[in-house]
């Protein structure tokens, strides 16, 4: 399955699964309306209130599920390749929690209300800061443990500061909203959120996508890669700001969703011949599929409870992470 034909088959399969899950996401909701009526309401103007539900409630939710999942899968694959660390992932490295902190500061101080772009930009700034800290801590030899430990510290700090910012808010509901910022949700998001986040995410994807070839060379080590003509500074710039832009915008509208960026690249790596350039598109599709599936599950398993997405992704991701730590440790011994 590692040949070019097999790889194309994998991408086609993932694309079909993602497309099916996207349609499925459009069809799931508290209002039990059959599939044909729902889809007709989406495309025609004569569906009345159902048209409103499809276009303003379910469509933005499905688009955000798709694009945020793709963001997490893609950035996880890039971070693992760039840091040459199997445990790298936006959530574990503190990038998503820091983006949450940026978004929380912009939203609850009222900056986001006065200047809508302030929300994704502040989240982007938070994410960029976290990537830079982790990058500095990783050093040139990229020790597996130092990166993860830096991530733990950044996560804990960002989480605590988010809690502080919410506690300081004059709004009585703010303090309870830490759950959203820590675990993420797509409930009742609107097209406004899509327009706010999608351009930044697309910009980030473009930056991350062009790192593929350089990451292939980096698997041989930074010195070899440099001798092969890879501009390491350029790769760093693309990886850091591509992750910051996409993960920042995703977190600004949906909160921090963990483990997608960890699990997806690992599951797909064996099918891509361990070539990062092939892993990137596959991980983007895989991440989209995983998040769409999780978002469908929260609506089917516990309707009306607004179960957070991070709960489901952690149920799958945390045991997987422990298994990875176990395997990494054995290899290091």
């Amino acid at each position, binding site marked *: 399955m590692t040949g070019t034909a097999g790889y194309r088959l994998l991408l086609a399969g993932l694309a079909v699964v993602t497309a099916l899950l996207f349609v499925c996401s459009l069809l799931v*909701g*508290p*209002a039990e*309306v059959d599939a044909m009526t729902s889809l007709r309401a989406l495309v025609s103007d004569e569906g009345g*209130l*159902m048209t*409103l*539900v499809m276009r*303003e*409630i*379910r469509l933005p939710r499905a688009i955000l599920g798709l694009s945020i999942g793709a963001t997490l899968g893609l950035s996880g694959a890039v971070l693992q390749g760039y840091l040459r660390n199997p445990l790298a992932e936006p959530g574990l490295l503190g990038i998503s929690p820091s983006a949450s902190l940026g978004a929380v500061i912009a*939203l*609850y*101080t*009222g900056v*986001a*209300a006065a200047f809508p772009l302030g929300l994704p930009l502040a989240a982007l700034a938070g994410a960029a800061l976290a990537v830079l800290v982790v990058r500095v801590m990783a050093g040139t030899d990229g020790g597996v443990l130092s990166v993860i430990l830096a991530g733990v510290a950044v996560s804990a700090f960002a989480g605590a500061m988010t809690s502080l910012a919410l506690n300081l*808010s*004059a*709004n*009585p*509901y*703010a303090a*309870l*909203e830490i759950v*959203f910022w820590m675990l993420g949700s797509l409930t*009742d998001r*609107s*097209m*406004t959120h899509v327009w706010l986040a999608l351009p930044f995410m697309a910009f980030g994807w473009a930056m991350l996508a062009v790192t593929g070839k350089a990451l292939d060379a980096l698997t041989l080590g930074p010195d070899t890669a440099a001798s092969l003509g890879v501009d390491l500074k350029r790769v760093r710039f693309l990886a850091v700001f591509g992750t910051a832009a996409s993960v920042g915008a995703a977190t600004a509208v949906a909160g921090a969703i963990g483990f997608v960026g960890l699990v997806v690249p690992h599951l797909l790596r064996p099918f891509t011949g361990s070539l990062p350039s092939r892993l990137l598109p596959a991980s983007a599709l895989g991440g989209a599929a995983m998040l769409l599936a999780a978002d469908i599950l929260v609506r089917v398993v516990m309707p*009306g*409870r*607004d179960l957070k997405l991070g709960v489901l992704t952690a149920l799958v991701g945390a045991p997987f992470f422990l298994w990875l730590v176990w395997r990494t440790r054995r290899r290091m011994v």
Partner: protein
Amino acid sequence: MARHRHRYRHRLAAEALALAALLPLPPAAAEEGAPRRVVSLNVCTDQLAMLIAGEGQLHSVSYMAQLPEASMLHEEAARYPVNHGLAEEVFLMQPDLVLTGTFTTRATTALLRRLGFRIEEFPPETSFDDVRENMLRLGRLLGRDARAAELVAALDRGLAGGAAGATGKLVATYSANSYTSGGGSLAGAVIEAAGLKNLGARLGIAGAGYLSLESLVLANPDLVAVDGREYDAPALAVENFVHPAFRRVAGDTKLVNVPARSWLCGGPFNLEAVRILRAAAEGTGR
């Protein structure tokens, strides 16, 4: 029809006047042997106690009683020293009766009971029967039966007017975090008393429950009752009110501002919520 409506307005005005007359306390001494130093720890018992207690009988109310967003009698409450439901401050007040809700300040209640204070707990009201019962019970406890009976009679007179103006329109309450009031809730009882139908109850929600934006849009109620409170700072909890789908289905003509304080606790002041809803239902046509 026009004359009927005119007469109806007249009656509404009369009821409002009667309600206003109830609010200031007619000072009168309590019976012999009745508690003389009552401390209330819950915003609902605070308000009933302010209405029912005799002059000098009520010593302290909770700090929430002074908050305009939670208490109908917040101005009245300014006359009393406030407590924050802490055992220590209540102990120092040395009350001979402590009034509390069954769901709030549990630790304080347990501690005060161990210290030998007399505690009376009041469950939150979910119907007008509960409201009557709580008022009469507090009247008995304070030795103010006549005053309590008077308030219950006023409440009943106000409620009797509601049946006449029944429009049967569908109303949904919608608050922060997409919560609604279903069947078996005081807000639901107020809606029925105003001659309207409650969407939450129709959807099978018991008490307070989550109402998805989708269900709200598809149910397309005639009226959407919101608190209308402006917060000092933004929060995600109130983002549901600016969602484009909510705006489309609950345009300005359908939104009714029913202050939370008017139906958060049971009391004669619930008639204010009934009046607001009834007036809104009369003003909108489908």
